């Protein structure tokens, strides 16, 4: 009894000691919890927030592009794609095999998908096929029960419903490449999204900042493995702004159709507002090909075509303006007071100077030429004579004043500056001194002088309006009209301008004019213009002696460029049109008819009326109109992809 009491007491003592120690340890735990949860709670709370919140970017809808009448040129189409989630699919290969039996999938697609599903985390969707047709989409949807882990996702993708007509103006978008990232100094995190599309050329590229919009963000809670648990907050971002161009979609279509078959460019400009109503370059291409990822074969076909469909000839291409430059030389001389409008020079068919003989296009010569006649008949020798007296620098200054040699500010890719040479320019760039032959060549728009069709259109518009009108491509952004730049009168003697305009009108409307064949007979729409034929080769003395001049006998690449600049109506100018037909031969023969058709089309607002043409040509014109490859567009129909 005593023993057990003793034992119980001893155990009791030790129990109290041990229990005390245990309670002390519990106290230690409590103290530690207090420290962590009360004193350091803020620190840990912050760490916890960082742990779980992830920002996900929501790509904004890209701004749409419309023509001046609101017809969509660039749209965002819903793009259906099939994705597969490895976690849900189980046996990915088997599911893909089943999927393959209902929608077309290449071995390449299968292999890529298999590789990607293995590489990615198992719950991340991997794209199997992109841009599904409605039929394929519904086939997948119907078979969903047999296709575990397969689902259809929808995204936005750029489409160009008008196809090739706007390929050069609007350009196209494409996924951001490493090259883009290295080139652009753009911190926008959107660019880091795989497959995010940015403008690659044209308006799409130049107005990227307007069209792109601001990325939205979605704050999502993720777990340690990165799986999305729920969305905490969402900021939709700002969609890109819509851009309305000054281009008239139906006119553009007409011009492209009119140029079909040629390697040519045409620019139509409103002489009052500067609005560019059509900027055509032929041949062209389908920008949708590039958005989808162009095939090697298609791309090769485009790059190996000798007509260079990818080149934007209207603003990027530069050509010797040829005789269309004569207005510049004439105005420079008139303004400098070196010649009067009625002063004449003798054209024997050539000019002998500095030990060289410079030929006129007319071998026999034009005889006595004043300014008016020299423009109407496009006598070269008159300009050789005048230019020697005016000097190249004053000619170039006049060219710049009229919009040549100046890079016009329109949002298209690679807008060319062209070239208006000066004494200094040749010294600096070529290390050679200017010789009089250079001036003589430049006086008729050959030699060093280079201009784009856009610049020629601007020149024509300025001559026609007498103002320093500038071209404009963007009409409105998000419905807010863009200001028409205020224009001032050109710093020129109005009498001289009138003289030039009279001569240009005579080019088309007088019997001796080079453009008479392509005149408009409708009194309200009479046109004025100037032809140009620019050599792309030197004519050797031997050739000249043999008399081999005929363009038709030369290979295409060596034929002359045909140019024509014009405006109408001649008495109250509204539109200026510049046409360049690469290697088209004579300007009056190859380019002038195009300029006339386009002018009539823009003035008339529809297919030109046959009554406006000289009676003898109406039959041919009617036939030509009927065979024009115009786009037939039913209202509401958009997108060639859904055809």
């Amino acid at each position, binding site marked *: 009894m005593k*023993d057990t009491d003793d034992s119980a007491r001893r155990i009791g003592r*030790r129990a109290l000691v041990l229990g005390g120690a245990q309670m002390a340890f*519990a106290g230690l735990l409590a103290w530690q*919890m207090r420290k962590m*949860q009360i004193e350091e709670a803020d620190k*840990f709370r912050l760490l916890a927030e960082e742990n*779980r919140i992830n920002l996900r970017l929501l790509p904004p809808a890209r701004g749409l592009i419309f023509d001046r009448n609101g017809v969509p040129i660039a749209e965002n189409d819903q793009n259906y794609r099939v994705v597969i989630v490895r976690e849900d699919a189980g046996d990915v290969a088997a599911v893909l095999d089943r999927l393959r039996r209902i929608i077309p999938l290449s071995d390449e697609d299968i292999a890529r998908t298999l590789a990607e599903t293995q590489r990615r985390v198992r719950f991340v969707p991997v794209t199997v096929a992109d841009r599904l047709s409605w039929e394929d989409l519904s086939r997948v949807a119907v078979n969903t029960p047999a296709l575990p882990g397969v689902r259809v996702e929808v995204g936005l993708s750029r489409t160009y419903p008008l196809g090739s007509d706007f390929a050069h103006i609007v350009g196209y978008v494409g996924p951001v490449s490493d090259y883009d990232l290295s080139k652009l100094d753009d911190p926008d995190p959107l660019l880091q999204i795989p497959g995010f599309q940015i403008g690659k050329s044209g308006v799409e590229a130049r107005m990227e900042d307007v069209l792109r919009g601001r990325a939205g963000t979605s704050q999502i809670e993720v777990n*340690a493995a990165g799986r999305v648990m729920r969305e905490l907050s969402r900021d939709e971002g700002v969609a890109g702004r819509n851009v309305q161009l000054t281009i008239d979609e139906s006119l553009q279509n007409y011009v492209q159709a009119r140029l079909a078959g040629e390697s040519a460019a045409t620019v139509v400009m409103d002489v009052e507002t500067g609005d560019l109503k059509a900027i055509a370059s032929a041949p062209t291409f389908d920008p949708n090909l590039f958005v989808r990822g162009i095939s090697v074969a298609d791309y090769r076909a485009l790059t190996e075509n000798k007509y260079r469909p990818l080149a934007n000839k209207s603003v990027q291409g530069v050509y010797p303006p040829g005789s269309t430059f004569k207005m510049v030389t004439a105005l420079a001389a008139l303004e400098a007071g070196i010649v009067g409008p009625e002063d004449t020079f003798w054209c024997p068919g050539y000019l002998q100077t500095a030990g060289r003989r410079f030929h006129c296009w007319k071998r026999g010569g034009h005889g006595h030429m004043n300014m008016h006649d020299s423009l109407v008949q496009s006598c070269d020798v008159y300009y050789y004579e005048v230019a020697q007296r005016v000097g190249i620098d004053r000619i170039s200054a006049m060219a710049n004043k009229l919009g040549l040699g100046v890079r016009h500010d329109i949002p298209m890719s690679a807008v060319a500056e062209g070239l208006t040479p000066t004494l200094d320019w040749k010294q600096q760039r070529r290390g050679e001194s200017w010789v009089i032959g250079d001036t003589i060549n430049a006086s008729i728009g050959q030699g060093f002088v280079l201009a784009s069709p856009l610049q020629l259109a601007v020149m024509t518009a300025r001559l026609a309006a007498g103002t320093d009108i500038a071209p404009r491509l963007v009409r409105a952004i998000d419905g807010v009209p863009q200001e028409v730049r205020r224009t001032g009168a050109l710093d020129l003697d109005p009498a001289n301008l009138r003289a030039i305009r009279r001569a240009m009108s005579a080019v088309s409307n007088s019997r001796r004019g080079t453009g008479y064949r392509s005149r408009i007979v409708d009194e309200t729409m009479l046109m004025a213009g100037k032809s140009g034929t620019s050599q792309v080769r030197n004519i050797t003395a031997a050739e000249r002696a043999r008399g081999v001049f005929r363009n038709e006998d030369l290979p295409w690449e060596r034929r002359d460029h045909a140019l024509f600049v014009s405006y109408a109506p001649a008495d109250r100018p509204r539109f200026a049109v510049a046409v360049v037909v690469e290697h088209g031969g004579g300007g009056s023969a190859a380019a002038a008819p195009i300029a006339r058709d386009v002018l009539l089309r823009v003035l008339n607002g529809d297919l030109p009326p046959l009554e406006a043409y000289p009676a003898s040509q109406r039959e041919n014109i009617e036939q030509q109109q009927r065979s024009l490859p115009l786009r037939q567009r039913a209202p509401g129909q958009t997108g060639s992809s859904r055809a």
Partner: protein
Amino acid sequence: MSYLEYNVKTIPAGPRKVLYLNWPLVLLLTAIACVGFLMLYSVAGGSFRPWVEPQAKRFAVGLAVMFIVAMVPIRIWRNLSALAYLVALVLLVWVEFFGIVGMGAQRWIDIGFMRLQPSELMKISLVMMLAAYYDWLDLSKTSRPLWVIVPVMLILLPVALVLKQPDLGTSILLLAGGGFVMFLAGVHWAYFAAVIAAGAGLVSAVLRSRGTDWQLLEDYQFRRIDTFLDPSSDPLGAGYHITQSKIALGSGGLTGRGFMQGTQSRLNFLPEKHTDFIFTTLAEEFGFFGGMSLLALYAAVIVFCIAAAMTNRDRFSQLLTLGVAGTFFLFFAVNMSMVMGLAPVVGVPLPLVSYGGSAMLVLLAAFGLVQSAHVHKPRS
């Protein structure tokens, strides 16, 4: 000196025994288990599946086991102690050869309706065995070296087997639990001082053995020690558990983020959120108040056990009650130290709260023994 001497008529018998159960203790254990259900419901994202339902069933089974064990007279348990110990030992050897490998260790035996962890069984068998040993041993011999070596061997044998599995957490629990019983039985202080000194020596030897060919711990155990000492050394690797656990705990603050609002645990940042790290969910969602409440419940269990032991009249009952309380203490103390970053991650569940069958069943059976001791003590 044994219970037989108290075999007087005042020991309750028959159905009346139920009245003499330590009902406050039953309520405490149930309350703790309910905290567990709540947390399992939360970590499952507001669902009774996959954890709450089986856990509740096991608790029900465990409670039944506890009552059955409590109804069996304590002397029968005393007489079965050696057998229980032997069976547990044999099973430990068995798993060494035939066990199912789970979570990187050989710990389970599949016995049809559940997976049995013999090491869990050993936790209670060892306490029973030691209590019975000291109940049998002449009091005066308690501190004699020869009679001290016997219980030390009884402890070290299973510890070595469990360590071999390898299960560091359970071997520490066995070692410390056995030590508690020896201490309570009245073994001289000097032995404990010597063991602690030797332990310190051993620790340094273990640490020094690293990288040599006589390495005493597995590499993963060394890494756990490393991460314990400096969790930030490997925040996404081995230190991940501790770092995330501390973030969860600390971010709970005073009142917590609210039930089912714990982002850390709900979003899988926490490892083993339903088992060893469930306390962090509680601390995150109910804050300091929640954590303290559970700690208070645990402390109350210890206090009730000590109080019950004080009224027991025989050594076996006393040592068993206190031994079970000690083991229970070790469970939650090690687990909570672990999740708070005070101890290395050794894989000890939070008693009655963590999801897991064996541990809960064994613990409730152990409390059945405590109840049995409580019921079958002589009353005036």
